[in-house]
C-alpha cells in the first residue's frame, strides 16, 4: 500500500511548527501505524534528514505512551485501540493521512508529534493513590468485595493515561482521566478511606493545571482507547460534591 502523510513538524517547544508532506510506498496492510512511521523514519535517516519524533513504548496497547491525532481522531479512526494497535489495513490504499500531536494547552508540544503529558502525572501525585502500612502481607480475602464493584473498579483502572480524552475534548478537559483514577479506587474499600480527600485534591490539581470544564459531550469516551465510560465522571462529580458538602 502507498500513502501520503501530512505530518506536523516542530523543532522544539518554542519554534513554530508546520505540516510537511511525505510519501511512503510498499507498506504491507499488516504493518502497524507506528511501524509505518518507523519505515518512514528509516527512509528519512537514509536520506540524511531529521526523523519524525513520536512517542511509543510497549506497542502492545497497555502502556499509554503512544498518542497521535490521526485524520481528526485521537489514536486514529479505529475504535477502542491505541495507535500502536492500529494497522494500515484500516486505511484506503493511496490515502492522505494527516498526523498531528495532541492539542491542549496543558500538553505543550516538545518536538514534532511528542507532547509533554506531565500534567497527568501531577494530577496522579495529588491523590491517585492509597496509603497502606508496610507490614506482613494481608489476607487477600479479609475484606469481601462484591464482584460487580471489583469489575467496575477494574474497568476504570483500564485507563492507560494516554491523554486522548483531554486531546479530544473540545474544552481540553481531563475529566475522564481524573474520573477513571478516582473511580477505580472509590469502588474498593481500600480506596474509600481517602475518598473525599482524593476527589478534592485531584480536581483542584486538574483546575490548577489549566484543563477545561466538562460539558458532557461524551467525545472522550468515544475516542478513549480503553472505552472508559463517562459514568465514571458522574461518580467523580458525586464524590467531589459529597466531599465539599461535608466541609
Amino acid at each position: 500500500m502507498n500513502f501520503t502523510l501530512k505530518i506536523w513538524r516542530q523543532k522544539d517547544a518554542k519554534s513554530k511548527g508546520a505540516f510537511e508532506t511525505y510519501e511512503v510506498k510498499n507498506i504491507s496492510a499488516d504493518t502497524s501505524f507506528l511501524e509505518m512511521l518507523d519505515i518512514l523514519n528509516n527512509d528519512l535517516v537514509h536520506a540524511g534528514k531529521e526523523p519524525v519524533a513520536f512517542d511509543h513504548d510497549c506497542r502492545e496497547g497497555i502502556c499509554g505512551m503512544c498518542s497521535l491525532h490521526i485524520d481528526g481522531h485521537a489514536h486514529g479512526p479505529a475504535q477502542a485501540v491505541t495507535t500502536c494497535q492500529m494497522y494500515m489495513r484500516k486505511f484506503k490504499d493511496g490515502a492522505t493521512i494527516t498526523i498531528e500531536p495532541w492539542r491542549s494547552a496543558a500538553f505543550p508540544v516538545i518536538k514534532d508529534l511528542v507532547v509533554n503529558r506531565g500534567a497527568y502525572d501531577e494530577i496522579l501525585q495529588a491523590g491517585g493513590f492509597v496509603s497502606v502500612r508496610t507490614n506482613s502481607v494481608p489476607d487477600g480475602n479479609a475484606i469481601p468485595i462484591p464482584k460487580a464493584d471489583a469489575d467496575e473498579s477494574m474497568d476504570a483502572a483500564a485507563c492507560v493515561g494516554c491523554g486522548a480524552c483531554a486531546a479530544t475534548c473540545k474544552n481540553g478537559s481531563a475529566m475522564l482521566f481524573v474520573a477513571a483514577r478516582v473511580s477505580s479506587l472509590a469502588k474498593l474499600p481500600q480506596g474509600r478511606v481517602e475518598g473525599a480527600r482524593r476527589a478534592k485534591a485531584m480536581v483542584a490539581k486538574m483546575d490548577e493545571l489549566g484543563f477545561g470544564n466538562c460539558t458532557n459531550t461524551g467525545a472522550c469516551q468515544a475516542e478513549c482507547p480503553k472505552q472508559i465510560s463517562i459514568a465514571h465522571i458522574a461518580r467523580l462529580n458525586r464524590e467531589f460534591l459529597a466531599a465539599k458538602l461535608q466541609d
Partner: protein
Amino acid sequence: MSCFLCNSSLGKKLVMSVTGCCLVLFLLFHMSMNLVALISPEGYNAICAFLGANWYAVVATVGLAAFVVLHFVYALILTINNYRARGTQRYAVTANEPGVEWASKNMLVLGVIVVLGLGLHLVHFWSKMMLVELMGQHQNALGLDPTNGAVLVAYTFSKWYNVVLYIVWLAALWLHLNHGVWSMFQTVGWANDTWYPRLKCAAKVVSTLIILGFMAVVVAFFVCSLCGACPAAGCAGCGACH
C-alpha cells in the same frame, strides 16, 4: 463552601446544573399556563391577574432573572476557560466522534439564541404587562389593557414574522434542552450507564413537551388570526389582531 462554587470547575458546573434545573421547571410551568389561553381567554387573564404586579410575582420574577443571569454569566466564564484550555494551536483536521450530539458541542451558541429570543419575548409581553402595571399605568404601548393577556397574545401572534421568530427561538431551546436536561443529572452525579438511555429519553420527552406546548399556542393564534371569524377557543374576538 461559597468558594468552591466560584473557583472550582465542578462547583461552577453545579451552579449551571441547579440554575438550569430551576429554569426548566419554570418553562414547564409557563408552558402549562400558556395552554390555558387555548381553552379559555378568561382563565388565562385570571392567571395574568394573579401574576401581575403582585409582590410575590415580582419577587419570583426577580429570582427568575437572577437564575438566567447566573446561568448565562457562568456559561460565559466556563466557555472562556475552555477556550483557553484548548490552546492556541488547533487541529487542522477534526472529525465527529461517534455518539456525540451536535447540540452538546454548541450549547453556548444555542444559549445565546435563547437569550436573544428571551429579550424579544420580554419586549413583546413583560414590558407590556407587568412593567406597565409596575409603573402604575393602565394602558401599554399598543393602547391595550395590561391585564388583558389574551388580547396581547392574539395581537402578537397575528404577525407572521413573530411566529417565525418564535419558532426559531423554540427550536434552539429544544436543542439546548435535549442536552441540558440529562446533563444536569450527570453534573450532580445522578447518572450511570444504566440510566443514560433513560435520562436522554426523558430529556427528549421533556424538551419536546415544552416546545410543543409553546408552539401550539403560537400556531393556534396565528391560524386564528388568518380566518378572522374563527371562533376558536382563545380568540377573544376583540379584533385587536386586525
